[in-house]
């Protein structure tokens, strides 16, 4: 297997940032807030590779930087460091702009490309599902419209064809297609998540980002949504980045896991290994406290 995405030394500050920020924060200092200037160091030197078709879990408590990480990957939060995609995966319309001409293997650093290209790339290769459906869906627009918006972005202009495509996806994500003209606002929480997933899959993305997708759902609903994601992954073959504070979710979905604390990676490895034989004391604590 070859890597799809390479992330190197990702660092994110929220605040004005001073010389003491890195020294006074991190797992050893047990804080992510700089003692001198109050800046939050949300991520520091986070590096990893994501392989084709792989599912990578990121666990940690709130404030560990895992959600910031997913927002950086989705180009919503600016960061220092670099992020590359393998050139052959660049959509053909963007190849000329985003290929790295010296190194044919990797693209340019995606963190420093123009907002326009970020948007285009995001639409072409990524899908995201949020914990709160209201972040990923327009609650007043019909469920079908939510999915179709992404087809419209890509230049589709035939209402009939778009509706066919949307109802196929809703079918796949177990939302009754006859409800496609109702707004998600009237749906149950589990169904809203399924509409989000359908929306994320419109372009058969290379990379699906899942941000605490089952948090807040009933246990039985959680199980069905996780099942659905696993089946869809088998069918579509995308890579996934799964952020969760719930170790069970990661255990079900992911082959590899990264454990984060106060903005730093404290442990990484195969999921089974991390959970069966944790090395870092924090991971040990996490595993031990698991229900």
């Amino acid at each position: 297997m070859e890597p799809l995405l390479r992330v190197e030394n990702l660092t994110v500050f929220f605040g004005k940032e001073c010389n003491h920020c890195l020294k006074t924060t991190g797992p050893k200092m047990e804080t992510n807030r700089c003692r001198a200037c109050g800046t939050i160091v949300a991520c520091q030197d986070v590096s990893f590779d994501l392989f084709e078709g792989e599912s990578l879990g990121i666990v940690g408590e709130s404030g560990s930087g895992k959600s910031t990480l997913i927002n950086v990957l989705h180009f919503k939060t600016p960061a220092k460091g670099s992020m590359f995609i393998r050139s052959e995966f660049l959509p053909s319309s963007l190849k000329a702009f985003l290929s790295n001409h010296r190194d044919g293997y990797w693209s340019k650093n995606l963190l420093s490309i123009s907002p326009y290209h970020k948007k285009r790339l995001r639409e072409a290769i990524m899908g995201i599902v949020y914990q709160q459906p209201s972040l990923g869906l327009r609650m007043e627009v019909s469920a079908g419209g939510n999915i179709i918006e992404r087809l419209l972005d890509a230049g589709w202009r035939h209402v009939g064809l778009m509706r066919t495509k949307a109802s196929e996806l809703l079918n796949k994500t177990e939302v009754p297609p006859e409800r496609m003209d109702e707004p998600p606002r009237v749906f149950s929480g589990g169904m809203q998540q399924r509409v989000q997933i359908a929306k994320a899959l419109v372009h058969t993305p290379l990379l699906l980002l899942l941000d605490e997708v089952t948090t807040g759902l009933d246990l039985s609903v959680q199980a069905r949504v996780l099942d659905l994601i696993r089946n869809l992954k088998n069918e579509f073959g995308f890579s996934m980045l799964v952020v969760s504070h719930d170790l069970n979710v990661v255990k079900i979905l992911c082959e590899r896991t990264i454990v984060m604390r106060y903005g730093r990676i404290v442990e990484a490895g195969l999921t089974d290994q991390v959970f069966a034989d944790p090395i870092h004391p924090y991971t040990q604590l996490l595993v031990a406290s698991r229900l």
Partner: protein
Amino acid sequence: MKRLDHIEMFYNFAFINDEVKREVRRAIFKAIAIPGYQVPFGSREMPFARGWGTGGIQITLSIITPTDVLKVIDQGSDESVNAENIKRFVARVSPGIGITTDTTQATIIQTRHRIPEEPMRSDQILVLQVPYPEALREVEPSEVETRRMHAEGDYGRMWLYLYEDIVRFGEVRISYRYPVRVNEHYIMDPSPIPRWDVPKLNMAESLFLFGAGREKRIYAVPPFTRVEPLTFEDHPFRIENFNGAKCKLCGSFDTYLNEIIMTEAGERIFLCSDTSYCKKRRKQLGV
């Protein structure tokens, strides 16, 4: 208002001073260079209320020369109060210019909400008054956000708005001010012209200048530019349908008509909205 007679003594030719004219012209040039892009400009107060065509007036006053022939229409009519008011003002402050109601005679036509029925030529300029320069305002109230959307070509939400209308009502509800895509790039508000007039913008011989005084924007459609209404392949753009009605005065059925309610019982007749065209036709037909 007799006092207006002395206005020439106090003001520059075409009222606004040369410094401001240069500024407006620069904005016009930029607008022509980037078809459909809204160029911000330092819109000045005119002796009219904001919203009464101050954007169009500033364009007209900035481009008019003593050899120009001006026509002003409002809702298609040369004689409506607003058109008369603007015409009177421009004529007073621009000695030497000609005034006409005939579309073919004019070099500059300032208009509100209509494009004349007779096709315009390459030596003519149509100046449109614009209340809402931002076509995306319907889906996004913030100017910061709409500017970003234009810059990134992020038009999915606008299309979604049209799609939702089709789902709910069977067709797009936008009647006038129908959004168009200019030169396959910017989405533009064509000003509140009826859908009837939208096809006239496409690959036209004449230059179209759009002025929004209150919102401080100028934009343009240069000659021979593609202007396409936003529409779906299986839901084509449709202009207004008068179900075979004819103008009561000139008998035409291929012009934009106004419906007039004549009696309390709801009896109605139809009349051409373009009054000077209607007059011309009647003359030709001898009615």
